[in-house]
């Protein structure tokens, strides 16, 4: 997920997004977070 994707989520306020745009190198702004899927099973 990049900075632009995070704009859709409530905790990423305009001030935080602006800070991210300022401080994260532009070539890394399209991958600041990773969405993962985890599966687990409780033992019988």
């Amino acid at each position, binding site marked *: *997920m990049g900075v632009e994707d995070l704009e*859709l989520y409530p905790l990423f306020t305009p001030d935080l997004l602006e800070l991210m745009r300022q401080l994260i190198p532009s070539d890394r702004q399209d991958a600041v977070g990773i969405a993962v899927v985890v599966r687990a099973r409780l033992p019988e």
Partner: protein
Amino acid sequence: MTRDLMHSAETKELVRTAYAGVDGSSEAVAHKLYAAAELALVPRTSVEGALGVANHLRHAAIEPGETVLDVGCGAGIDSILAARRTGPTGRVLALDFLPEMLERTGAAAAQAGLDNVEPVEGDMEAIPLPDATVDHVISNGVINLAPRKARVLAECARVLRPGGRLTVSDLTVDEEELPPEILTHPATWAG
């Protein structure tokens, strides 16, 4: 420990305030994560309020008759989709700590003609369900919001029946890649 608890309360309040103000304008999230055929099964209010980070349901083998717990149901998109899979012999317990979200999920379930979605108000760090009563725990982009994530996972394990499954999608970051000003920003405490 006192500091942790203070930090925990601040984080929860931050999340509560941010998510209670959600105005249903995140439809782009739904279209990015879900197929049109999936979205056709869900009322528009849930689609407009989608705030997940992945489509974990594609990896979740939810069977008819199962009891599913959706941790942090939000506007209800995953609860609705899961309830269609469990069918009328199963049920989805839609857990959220925001009454606003529970109302949206309940209304969406009613609109979808589903009577097997049960809104449950509660904190994911202290799930208000008995031990070993759930077949499948799902959650989408929510556990990262908890101040004590290990506590949430312990609670999920507690409510699962032996052999029960957990299918969770969430957001993670590489702390080495982000500047300290970002990592210490109040809004990223939750993540």
